[in-house]
Each structure stands twice: as C-alpha cells, then as structure tokens.
C-alpha cells in the first residue's frame, strides 16, 4: 500500500521536474534576463561578453552576487513547492480520523511519518535558510554599496553545495530499492534516529538525510562567513555602523548565529552517523546518553529559529516604513533588540526539553531566559505598530504582507510566551498547540515577510510589475488560510491532540478538517503566487521610473533603488524600453493583465 503514496510522490516530483525542463527549454535566450527586464539592447553592446558567458553556462559559472541571489531564490521556491506538496498529502490524509479509507492515499502511517520528517527538514533547511540567503545576496551588497560579496567564489560554492544536499535529503523518496525515507521528525531524536530498537530507522535512508543535512549546514556556514566579512569590510565609505540599514544588521546578527549554531549541528550529525555506522557511544545510553543529542540539537535548534526569523524581521522593518510614510520608529532600539535576541537565543535551548526530566533548577533558569527573550521581540512589534501609527498607509501587496506578518507574529509570539512557562509547557508539550505556535511564526511570519520582500523587490529585480489583483488574492488566501489552519491547531492542542500522528480520535475531526481547508487555501494561494511570478517575469508591465514605489516624495528611498535608477538610466541611454505602469496601491487603470 505504501507503493501508492510513493508512486504519487514520484509522479508529482516527475511532473515538477518536467515543468522545470519545459520552462528551461522555453526560455530561449538566457542572456536576455537583466535586472531591468528582458530584451534590453544592452545585450548587443559587445561589452556583456566581457562579464558573463551567454546561455545557461552563465548560471553555472556566475560569481555575481545578484545572479547567485536569484539561484538561491529559485532553489528555495522549488523546495517550498516540494515541502508544500508533502504537507498537502498529509493534510489530505488527516481529513478522516482513522487509517482506513484515507490512509490508502498514502499507503501507511510509516509514509506519513516520512512526509512529516521531510516536510520539516525541507521547509527549514532547503526553503527557509536559502530564501533568506537569496535576499541577502541580492540586496546587502547593493544597500551597503559594495562591489560584490567579500568572497564571490565562496559565495558560488556555498550555493552549489545545496542541490546535492537536497538530493541526499530527498533520496529516501526516490525509487531506490530498500531505502526507506527517514521518519525521525526534523528533530532526529536519539535513540530512534540512532537506529536501535525494533523500528526501521536503522535503514540507510536516515544516513542519506543526515549527510544531506550536513552538506547544507556547510553551505550555510560558508555563506555566514561571507556575509560577516562583507558587512565588516565591504561597506562603502559613507555607510558607517551608525547608519547601517536594519536589514544588513539582521543579516549580520543572523550570520553570527549561524557561525556558532550550524557547525555544532554538523558535529552532532557526524557523531550520530558514527553511532549508527561505526559503533561509537556518543548518544548511547550509558555513554553520552540520548539527552546529549537533545542538548546539542537544541543548542543549534533554538538559535536556528532566530536565524530564520531575524532577517524576515529585518525585511519588515525595512519595507513597512516605506508604505507607512514614516521612518522606522525607534530605529536604534530595533537594532539593539536584534542584537539582544541574537545573544539571548543561545540561552533558551532547554525550553524544548522541559518534559525530559532535566534538573528543575535548570528548567527554571531556562524558563526565565525564554520569557526574557519575549521582551526584545515585543520591542520590535511595538516599533512596527508605532511606525504605522498616524502614518499615511498605502496598502500595497508588500505592505499587506508586512501587516499580516505583524498580526501573525503577535499570535505566534504570545502562544510562545505560554510555552516558555514550565507548568504550561508540561501540559501542552508535544501537542498540536506547539505545532500551531511555531507555524504561526514560520508560515505566518517568516514566509509572509519573505513574500513582502519578493513583491517589494520584484520591480527591482525584473524591471516589471507583478499582477496586482493576483497578488492581493494571494495575500488574502494566505492570511485567511494561515489563521484557519494554525488557529485550529492551537485549539486542537488545547484539546489534547498529540502531534505527529497519522490518526486521531473522532472528536478532533472538525478542527482537523478546518485545518485541512485552511491548508487548501494556502495551496491555492501558492499556485496563484507561482503563476503570477512566472508570467509577470516574462510579460509583466514594465516599470516606468527609477522609483516605482514613489518613495522619493516622502523622502523614503533607499540605496538599492538608487542603484536601480542608475542602471535604468544607463539602459535608457542605450535605447531601453518605454512603458507605463503605476505603483501597486496607486491609481490602477484596469491594467492588470
């Protein structure tokens, strides 16, 4: 029966790859992409061939931070589609409580566990980290006015380590004989993940996933070293520490966290691989004990949460003021709170382990730090709200996503404060409440901020407009879908529904169905997003000015748009295109294409 699900996933994967292949084949002239959109005549000036080769070779050989940013972005979005498809299969399976008719879809609860594991790993390591690297690569050098990243070649190496990493992580799903995809969940707790006991987790599928994870960790660490060196040494003379922008601050802090978190995970993964294959005792009972894995994993894992959330907070802090008509309120305190979160994030890891029987005094101190970290997060939230207070809001799509971010972040954050408290956590641990809480953060906040960034900088990258109506449909589907899905999960958790199960008691059916309906809305919204981006990239209305968001009138323009304007002028002088489009949220003359 498991074959059905496997087949389904293989077919989906095949269809995806076919789609990518068809897309690649349709794009005839790879050189035609410029940051100002296709078809500029600059391509024939003869100078281009001095910088990059034409055709697809350009993308394999590029050391340009903007190109690498686009590669990261494409990679992350492909991973997002894969991870999203995995979770849609799970939500469909959860439509009915028991494992009779519905489980036929997936074949077995075992396969459900595999999907659950891969969904988490894919979204956190193959979507979350790379999409942030995409923004950071493209924008940080532009904003701080650097030539490029400090180490352009290392930048390219870091990206090209990711595809083999994904291949290994997903390898369990490929039709390899006798390889079972890992079912350890993304936390990979020992002794299950060490392969002992009666289960099938001694299967090599787990090893493949661990190897792939290690590779993506190496990639993230190389990227972090590069960003630190870039922000420290590549700033132009007029970009000082005092006027460094908020996005670069969050990337710098995030890179600092990666520097200490990811290598430790790497060591832990190698130790686990040795335990599994060479008979060492790192996580064996009587050796380091399974609890050692939890300590090492969460010493990485909790900073990882902030690795994923700080840069999106930076995007929101950067984009939201543009459409609030005011400068960011309390800029300094947003920076300080970023740094405070960066430091505190290494002191909260054991709040994931309150129910493991660790020393109560240890629990109390971790509870205190975990509650304390809510303070800098709240400082940021109040700063975003006060930025909008009495502002002249323009409800463009990026702005809607920023506001959605703040709203979802409040729910995700407040549910988190309760979990930080030991007695509450002991009740809610391992229930859907936890799942709802962190999905409010990773989907409702992080992904929303990512979308704000994608829509906001779409004109910068492509020189074209996205389709406004589709973008707004995307936002509302996601806003409603996110709150339906994850609020239902919070309620399920209050009801005592444990997480990670393919089956459940009949009384949970209604809330599970609400969650599945919400997930379907998210899926439809996601399809609209992909369609919008793909078609607008090729044939969207061209941007008609160097300041597409009309930021200059409120004196809110930033460095990357100055770069855009400069490039645009040189392109125009070269016989660029004309076209007219108004800003999203400005007057719309029925030109939505």
């Amino acid at each position, binding site marked *: 029966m498991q074959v059905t699900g496997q087949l389904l996933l293989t077919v989906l994967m095949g269809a995806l790859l076919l789609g990518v292949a068809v897309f690649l084949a349709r794009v005839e002239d790879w050189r035609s992409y410029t940051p100002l959109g296709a078809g500029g005549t600059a391509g024939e000036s003869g100078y281009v061939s001095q910088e*990059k080769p034409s055709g697809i070779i350009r993308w394999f050989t590029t*050391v340009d931070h903007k190109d690498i940013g686009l590669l990261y972005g494409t990679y992350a979005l492909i991973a997002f589609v894969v991870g999203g498809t995995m979770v849609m299969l799970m939500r469909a399976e959860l439509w009915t409580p028991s494992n009779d008719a519905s489980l036929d879809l997936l074949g077995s609860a075992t396969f459900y566990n595999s999907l659950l594991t891969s969904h988490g790993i894919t979204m956190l390591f193959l979507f979350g980290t790379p999409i942030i690297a995409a923004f950071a690569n493209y924008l940080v050098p532009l904003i701080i006015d650097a030539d490029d990243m400090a180490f352009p070649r290392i930048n390219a190496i870091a990206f090209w380590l990711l595809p083999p990493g994904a291949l290994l992580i997903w390898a369990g799903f490929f039709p390899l004989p006798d390889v079972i995809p890992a079912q350890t969940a993304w936390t990979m707790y020992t002794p299950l993940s060490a392969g002992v006991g009666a289960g099938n987790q001694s299967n090599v599928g787990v090893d493949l996933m661990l190897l792939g994870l290690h590779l993506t960790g190496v990639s993230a660490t190389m990227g972090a070293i590069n960003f630190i*060196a870039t922000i420290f040494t590549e700033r132009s003379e007029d970009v000082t520490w005092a006027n460094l922008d908020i996005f670069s601050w969050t990337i710098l802090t995030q890179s600092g966290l990666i520097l200490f978190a990811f290598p430790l995970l790497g060591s832990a993964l190698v130790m686990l691989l040795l335990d599994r294959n060479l008979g*060492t005792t790192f996580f064996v009972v009587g050796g380091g004990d399974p609890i050692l894995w939890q300590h090492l994993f969460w010493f990485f894992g909790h900073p990882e949460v902030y690795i994923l959330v700080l840069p999106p907070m930076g995007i929101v802090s950067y984009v939201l003021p543009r459409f609030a008509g005011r400068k960011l309120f309390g800029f300094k305190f947003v920076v300080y709170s970023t740094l405070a979160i960066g430091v505190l994030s290494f002191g909260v890891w054991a709040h994931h382990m309150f129910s493991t029987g660790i020393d109560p005094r240890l629990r109390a101190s971790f509870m205190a730090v975990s509650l304390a970290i809510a303070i800098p997060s709240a400082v940021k939230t109040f700063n975003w709200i006060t930025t909008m207070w009495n502002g002249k809001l323009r409800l463009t799509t990026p702005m809607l996503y920023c506001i959605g971010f703040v709203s979802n972040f409040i729910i995700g954050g407040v549910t988190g404060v309760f979990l930080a408290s030991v007695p509450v956590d002991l009740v809610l641990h391992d229930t859907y409440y936890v799942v709802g809480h962190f999905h409010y953060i990773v989907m409702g906040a992080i992904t929303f901020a990512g979308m704000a960034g994608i829509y906001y900088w779409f004109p910068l990258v492509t020189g074209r407009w996205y389709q406004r109506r589709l973008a707004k449909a995307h936002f509302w589907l996601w806003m409603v879908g996110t709150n339906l899905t994850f609020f239902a999960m919070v309620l399920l958790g209050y009801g005592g529904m444990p997480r990670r199960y393919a089956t459940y008691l009949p009384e949970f059916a209604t809330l599970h169905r609400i969650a599945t309906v919400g997930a379907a809305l998210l899926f439809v919204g996601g399809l609209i997003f992909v369609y919008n981006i793909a078609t607008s990239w090729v044939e969207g209305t061209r941007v008609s000015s160097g300041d597409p968001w009309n930021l200059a009138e409120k004196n809110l323009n930033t460095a990357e748009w100055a770069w855009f304007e400069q490039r645009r002028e040189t392109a125009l002088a*070269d016989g660029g295109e004309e076209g007219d489009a108004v800003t999203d949220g400005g007057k719309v003359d029925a030109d939505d294409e």
Partner: protein
Amino acid sequence: MATETEDAHDEGHHLPAVEDWPRGFGEASWWPFVTAAGAGGIYVGVALFLMGFGDTNIVPVVYGQATLVGAVGLFLVGLYGWLYHAFVSHFWQRGTDEHSASKLQWGMIAFLGSEVATFSGGFVYFFFIRSGPSWPPGELPPLLGSLVLINTAILIASSVTLHLAHGAIRKNNRGRFIGLLGLTLLLGIVFIGGQVYEYYEFIAHEGFTLTTGIIGSAFYGLTGLHGLHVTMGAVLLGIVFVRSLLGQYSADRHVSVTTASMYWHFVDAVWILLVVVLYVGAEIGGGAV
C-alpha cells in the same frame, strides 16, 4: 551584468574573476561549480558507501569507493583552480590595500569562530561522560606517556617557529622566512606522524579502539577531528611554503601567511586544551576502577 557600461566600471566596480576559466569573462568562473560538485560528490560517495556497507547490500561497495575517489579528485582540481586564480596568479599585480587584507582576516576569524562550535560537540560529549554515572570507564590506555608530551612540545615549537617566520617576512628577510616556514611544516608533519604512531600503539598493542567503551569515542572522536585539522593546517602551510619557494610574499604582501598562521595557532591552542581536558582529565581519577 548586461546593462553595465564602461563608465560604471570606471567608477570602481571591479571584476573578480577575469582570469578564471572560462577566460575573458569578468564575473564567471567554473571553479566554484567544480569545487562544489566535488564536495557534493564526496557526500554522495559516502552515501553510496553506506548503502553498500555491512549487511546493507543495496549497491556494491565499490560504487561508493569509486565515487569517493573521483569526487575527491574533482574537489582538489576545483580547489586548485579556485585558489590559483583567486590568490596565486598575478600575485604581484594585485593591490596591497589594507582593505583586502582585513577582508581575508575577517573571513578567517569568522571561520575560526565556526571551528570553536565544531570542536564543542566532542568536548561536550567528554564532559557528559566524565561527569556522568558511567565514569570511570574501566581500563584506560596509557594516555599520559612520553609520546603525548613530546608531541605537544613539537606542536608548540611549530607555533613559535611560524611566528618567527611571520616576523621574518615582515622584515623582508626571505631566507629566514622560508627556512622557518619549512621547519614549521616539518614539525607539523612530525606531529601528525606522532599521532599516527599513537593510534597504532593503542590499536595494535593496547586493543584500544574507536569502539572501546565510552572513552574510545571521546578519544578518537576528538583527536581524530583535531588530527584532520592539523592535516588541513599542514596543507595550508604547504601551499604557503610552495608559494614562498616560487618567490611570492614580501614585507607588504603576506596576507595568506597571516591567515594561515591564525589557523595554525588556533589548532595549536585547541591541542593544548585537548591535552588538558582529555589526556590529563581522563587520567586523573579515571584510571582506577
């Protein structure tokens, strides 16, 4: 980028990869892709090896071995091309501004920060077992013999000679620089030899291996990780040594001497910590059962 004009370049946009293969493109290089393909291939090779390892006979073991050998080769080729074009070729034509030096030094500092985290995993494991209920672990091999003392002295001496070599190139004393650098490299290799000899003694004569109880994992895990780092440090010093023999470096051009030194001193410091924590820490109160 396609829309850039010559004027834009004159404003100072530098092209990082003019010399790389493919030649003649300012921002294109195959080396990162080749290096990453090699590195990724190493992981795939290990994966294939594990798929054929022991009683999991999914693919023949030789697939994994062959992939590993090929991937390591590819990785080294990529590494050579990358390092050659980024640092070695046109050594004397490149600028010597403060900026590019501090960029590389910051890169090395950040990398060493990540190394602290890498080593922490093994150390934390040792702290766990050393303070846990399973300690003492029974019979220990003679950890604190003359070998480890001599080896430690050798590694510390190599840090001193490297520091002196660095001082020599700052004063443009090339002969002294090359001599001391060569001596450092030699001491490093002797240290690695000493480690190999210690492993041989423990495994062949003491029957103390990776799977000998909880201390075996700690000992071989930590010294193995450190040994890999010393080996990599020796490779870095070897590259610097070869470049110095080719006539590179001068009083105002020695960034890679600086960064390689930072790495070597770091690995040396980790060794001292390792000796104190693991060798001494296990012997004190650990031998008797």
